[in-house]
């Protein structure tokens, strides 16, 4: 590859270093201190796994377990629903030619990204109360499904844009119906994008605090809402342990999504 001195601006490398430092220091610090034996949490006084034990067996562990189960259930279902809708939408946007409403559709699918989160939260709360739906698993699930759609849509449509319609055309030339062309040709090629989209919307759902907090009602908690409730009174070490666990889950899922996406790209470079 051509290298030219013009690419390198003095000081930019250092600023990039600072950028990475700023992004990672808080995460690394909290992960390290979650193993701190001292309960005063500031002074390092030796290695311990006690806080992790407390998360799973302590007084509040039942509450956290329930919240974790709720979070997972919502994330699994909401991201599945949004992925299916995003897949259909991507085919509609990229494989159906032009039609009335196509350009506005793109804005509509991206709408959850454009509306400030607090507005979405308020809007959902008002709407559910207007319908007479009190906060529950269902309201949280609906709200999550909505904002997960663009996160599932983007990797799927990016992948689909990389796949020329040539293969499906060839399939129909070889006596496949359109449905067969989709199922036997496009779908397998899209799979990395679909998995990637599912994982991303899964993380987004797992992460959401603000909207969940508005629509959850009393009695239904997810992990972020219980953690938020707990830190109001101060950051206790068991919260740091739980945060580190969630940190790990997010990072693993992102890396997985990235690797699957990349593998897909390399497997059928055209």
């Amino acid at each position, binding site marked *: 590859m051509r290298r030219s001195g013009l690419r390198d601006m003095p000081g930019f490398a250092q600023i990039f270093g600072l950028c990475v430092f700023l992004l990672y220091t808080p995460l690394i610090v909290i992960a390290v201190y979650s193993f701190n034996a001292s309960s005063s949490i500031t002074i390092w006084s030796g290695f311990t796994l006690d806080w992790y034990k407390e998360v799973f067996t302590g007084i509040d562990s039942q509450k956290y377990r329930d919240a974790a189960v709720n979070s997972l259930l919502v994330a699994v279902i909401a991201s599945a629903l949004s992925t299916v809708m995003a897949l259909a939408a991507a085919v509609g946007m990229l494989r159906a030619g032009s039609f009335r409403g196509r350009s506005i559709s793109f804005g509509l699918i991206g709408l959850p990204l454009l509306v400030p989160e607090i507005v979405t939260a308020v809007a959902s709360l008002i709407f559910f109360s207007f319908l007479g739906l009190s906060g529950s698993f269902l309201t949280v699930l609906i709200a999550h499904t909505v904002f997960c759609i663009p996160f599932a849509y983007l990797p799927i449509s990016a992948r689909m844009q990389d796949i020329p319609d040539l293969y499906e055309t060839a399939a129909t030339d070889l006596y496949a119906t359109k449905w067969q062309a989709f199922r036997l040709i496009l779908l397998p090629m899209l799979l990395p994008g679909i998995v990637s989209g599912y994982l991303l919307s899964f993380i987004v759902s797992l992460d959401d605090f603000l909207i969940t907090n508005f629509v959850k009602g009393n009695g239904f908690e997810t992990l972020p809402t219980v953690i938020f409730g707990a830190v109001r009174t101060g950051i206790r070490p068991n919260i740091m342990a739980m945060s580190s666990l969630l940190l790990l889950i997010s*990072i693993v899922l992102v890396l997985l999504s990235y690797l699957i996406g990349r593998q897909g790209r390399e497997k059928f470079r055209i």
Partner: protein
Amino acid sequence: MAGDMQSARGTSRLYQGKGPWLLLPAWAVIGIFLLLPVCLIVVYSFLTKEFHGGVIPEPSLAAYDQFFFDRGIFGDDPPRIEWNYIEIYLLSFLQAGLATLFCLVIGLPSAWYIATRPIRLRQMLILVITVPYWVNLLIRTISLKFLIRDEGPMNAFLQWTGLLDHPLHLVNTSYAVQLGLFYSYLPFMVLPIFASAERFDIALSEASADLYSTKWQTFRLITLPTIWPGVVAGSILVFVPSLGAFLAPNLLGGAKTYMIGSLIDEQFKGAAGNWPFGAAAATILMSVVLVVLILNARSQIKLKGAG
């Protein structure tokens, strides 16, 4: 030929006529559960408040009146401009603006640095920037708060090195909020700038250098204008969510640095709530965001026209 050009862009007419049907589920879900509710906010902002939360379906301008005018304790003084809420909005603007500026100062050079690395390294570095974005925002904010607390590791470290003799007081100041917003949305600045910097043709810089420009002149005159759309996109992506942010002001700012997010949040929590007022505050926030987006769209159309 038209058909060939179309397939080259990854789009095709294979499922011609099925488009609306395929988009229907996404349209319906987003339309019913987001677009409709957002419109409902506007309606609610013009209704009468019910104590203990909710609304009475009677049209009223009370929410906007409360937002903009001060009529004294008993509500019968001649109306004066109420600065309280406007100040919260202006302060939020300032906070979001400063956060955007800091993100730009760090994000632009970082994005350019990443975009000019060889391809394998580039992909890795951009992943390094992306990963924190996917980490739970609540956890990131908690981590930051833990780090910068008066008795937290940062102050301990600074005092240990002898740079400071007493802890730097950050938590519950507006600096902490700016830092929090900066930290929350930094990846949003880097990614779009990176995307436009990656497409930049270095031959343009070479031509400029060949015509006697210095490195910085080349960067300012050639590089910056070409990556400008990325800078604008990044700034919007940082500014808009910062404006309505809730977690950073709430956890890092405390009671003194009140932002729009907390103001709205409060109206829907507990008996002190005022739904129409919260809806009005949200409507005003939305209008501001809409103006920003429209201005951006206009400038992009202008850019396209010029190009």
